[in-house]
């Protein structure tokens, strides 16, 4: 039986004004599994990702990431979980404009105090894997949107995290590029045995996942394409 990478049990969250976003939310994500969460705007998809990343606190419930309960961790420990166990892919890429591609990808390893030469070599491998190996000394401004998202995928995977949190990774891309990116993301995550929680509006992107769930005020329910 595969190890659970993420386990959410009876998680509830209200907004500061008192509006309840969701309650009794349960979710289990096994290693290698990819789950897409869909939902209307404002339903709390971003809040859910914040809670999983340890950047926001749930009102109640238990959040276990890579076997550790976030509730018992302080800020520094939660940061260490993010650094070591989680990889992020954002809609707006968020590639540091003042680092070249290899430095951008190597950055999570640098945070783990991996020697720079090793980190850059490993970043090179990941850039090769996403098809940008030849451009490792380029700067972000020389890349297209699709290329930037490839860099982001390489960065999310470089430190071999257990969990990938992907936020609308195709939101800024054209349909053809979006399809390629989702294929690359799904394949890369799978190859490395990581789990992925994907938040998206796009049915096409969601369709690449193993499971599709719909976020409602009463928790997650299976979604139908």
């Amino acid at each position, binding site marked *: 039986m595969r190890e659970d990478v993420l386990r959410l049990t009876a998680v509830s969250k209200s907004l500061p004004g008192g509006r309840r976003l969701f309650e009794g939310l349960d979710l289990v994500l096994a290693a290698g599994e990819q789950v897409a969460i869909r939902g209307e705007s404002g339903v709390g998809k971003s809040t859910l990702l914040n809670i999983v990343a340890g*950047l926001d606190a749930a009102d109640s419930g238990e959040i276990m990431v890579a076997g550790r309960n976030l509730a018992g961790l302080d800020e520094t420990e939660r940061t260490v979980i993010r650094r070591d166990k989680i990889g992020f892919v*954002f809609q*707006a890429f968020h590639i540091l404009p003042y680092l070249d591609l290899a430095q951008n990808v190597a950055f999570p390893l640098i*945070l783990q105090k991996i020697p*720079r030469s090793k980190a850059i070599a490993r970043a090179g491998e990941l850039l090769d894997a996403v098809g940008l190996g030849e451009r490792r000394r380029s700067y972000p401004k020389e890349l297209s949107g699709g290329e930037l998202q490839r860099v982001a995928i390489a960065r999310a995977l470089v430190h071999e995290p257990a969990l990938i949190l992907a936020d609308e990774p195709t939101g800024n891309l054209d349909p053809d590029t979006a399809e390629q990116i989702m294929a690359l993301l799904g394949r890369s995550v799978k190859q490395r045995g990581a789990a992925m929680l994907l938040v998206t509006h796009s049915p096409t992107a969601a369709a690449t996942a193993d499971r599709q769930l719909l976020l409602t005020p009463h928790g997650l329910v299976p979604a139908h394409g």
Partner: protein
Amino acid sequence: MAETGGGWRWLIAGELRAFPMRFLLAGLAIAIGVALAFAVHVINRSAADAFGQAVRSVSGGSDLQISGASALGFDETLYPRLMALEIVADASPVVQLRAMIGEQNKPITLLGLDMLRALTVSPNLIGRTSAEAGEAEAALDMDALYLSETARAQNGLRIGGRVDVRANGRSHSFTITGDLPGVDAGQAIGVIDIATAQWRFGRLGMLDRIDLKLAQGVSIEAARRAVETVLPGSARLTDAEAESRRGDTLSRAYRVNLDMLALVALLTGGFLVYSAQSLSVTRRLRQFALLRTLGMQKRALGAQLLGEGALLGIAGSLLGLAGGYAIAGAALRFVGGDLGAGYFGGTSPKLHFAPMAALLFLSFGIATAVAGSYVPARQAARIAPAQTLKDAGDPVDPRAAPKAWPAMALIALATLFAFLPAVNRLPLFGYLAVALMLAGCVAGMPWLARTLLRPLARADSRLPSLDLALHRLLGAPSQASTALGGIVASTGLMIAMAVMVTSFRGSVDDWLASFLSADLYVAAASNEASFDAETQRRLADTPGVAGIAFSKSLSMTLDPELPPVLLLVRPVAGPGYELPLIEKARRPGVGLALWLSEPAARLYGARPGAPISLPIGKEGEPARAYVAGIWRDYARQQGAIIIDARDYIALTGDEMRSEAAVDIAPGASVPAVRAAIEARLPPDLAGRVSFAEPASLRARALALFDRSFAITYVLEAIAILIGLAGVAATISAQTIARIKEFGMLRHVGMTAGQILAMLASEGALLGFIGVTAGITVGLALSQILIHVINPQSFNWTMATTIPWALILAVVAALIITAAGTAVIAGRRAVSRDAVRAVREDW
């Protein structure tokens, strides 16, 4: 601009509403610059007007004047020779003395006039007899004194009363017979009969001035040529305008220096506008890209930024003009028209609004703000909308090595300019050298930053915060250069001024120590020549006095276009005097030996051994002399010449002295000797002599130094504060603009502490590079100030003293400001909101 109509106004108004503090700070910086420049101008203009008015008042409306080349005046036989000239319709002889009246000892200009002549030549000086005195009696009364309203008010005197008048070491009692209605308000003038003036005040056979009324149709130039033919060496032809010009010449360099400092404040304000607008553009690049995508023209976008700059300029400049006028009013009231520098003594200037200057400084302020917005506006207009919407990062490619040659070229040009001479007695090339040196250093910042940071970035510190900070500075070179420019300019100017002022103060202190080597100094009230030969002999014999040297000073004109030089009469070697010589003639020249102060030598282009003549020779002929040496002097900017007392007596017969330096015999005490000297003074000098010891004189001189530099300190401090505010604003705005970056870094596992450490490292590295360059450029600038601007402005040199403690404090302050600002702004940026900064896509 018209195409965008109201939209353009909306955008500006929206930006003002969103970031009021940023606009307020930039506008305030412009306001301060304009206020300082306008205040300095208004104060100087008011003071110069008052000085000119004083000169015109004593000239009384004559066409031309003959004045004594020295305070000794000239022989009255010149008067009939002038009257014989055809070009002269009438001439009025004048004895002009500086006098003290009443119990309050307030100074007035005392004029001895031939009333009948003055009536036609200088009618403004004719007195109006009061009804009680009676016209006829007053005309015959040899002791009649007419006092201007200011002279009466200052001394609490009324018409009809009697008053003691002291001048030229003598005293006489007069009746205040009437007033002087033609004399301008604010001028303290007294008029007596010329014969009385000559008789009562030791000026028999001598005149100080002859006022001329020219024959009808005679031009001033023709008159000048005719008068020159009869003029002795002891007299000079002049007019009220030339006198005013000389006063202007004396203070001009000082005024220009203050103007330059005010300009520095204004330019720093311009830098702040540039910095605020650059950051505003960086922050709004996407907004601009959107506007361009929606159809806004390039030109309209640029115009929006320029419009914002112009609005800032107008608001800041108007505020500055009002502030400047208020500062000028306060300064005239509390510090004086010379701003503590002592150029316009004896005048009481009134505040005059200067509309043309106000317009000029208003335009300066607007132009500076618009110029500060120009580069950001061009950047905004040139954006490529599609690229910009993608967040393209720094416009400069971090892989391209910055060029060093533009900076080198500017610095080389600055060095060349530093060696060029003054233009019209102003160090224009010196100022240009300062500006070019600063510009060169700022231009060289990208190259220097890369040169210093690359080796550090190559080393693997295993400290992610430091690594990221180094890569950010190398990877965003244009943003780093903007912040560095501010730090370098602030540090450079701060250190240059600190080194210059410390060097100047140190040199003045050394000079005082060598100049004030007597044990006790004695001076007659108001430096009147009060010690006659008999008094000098009596004082020399005072018990406890080992040696005594008497001296006096009198002004004389060597060049009609320059202010009068001071002739110091005293023993060249003797008790209490040790000339701080800079250069000495290798061999004696022809005639008298004269020792010129450094300012005098520079003003008159005299070298040791060179011939020189003094307008105090026998029978009005110039005395031949040579420059025996040049000595350091910081007290008399108009120049001073020392003549040995024996040579002076041989030339003039004048034995009256106003000061004495006393060496005390071993075992004698200063208080005892002082009491003994007081006891030996003649009765009319009792209580009118002051005593000072070197320590108190030195303290007083240094206090005077500090007072005259007070305005410089204030202007410099304000320029520095604006600079520091600019640095703080630049760094904090850059930090706040990176809020998404910090959000992403928190997501990928950087702790808030690591981000703050990164920001502190960035700030400290920027501060370190900026301060290193700032110290270097500051020391270079200080050498331009010390060896070019000071000698060319004030004609004196000084030895460099570097205030290391102050420099260290400045370095610490700047690095702390840079790092501290980054951390403070960073705290806000890495807060919970910052983590959510990436939420635009969630």
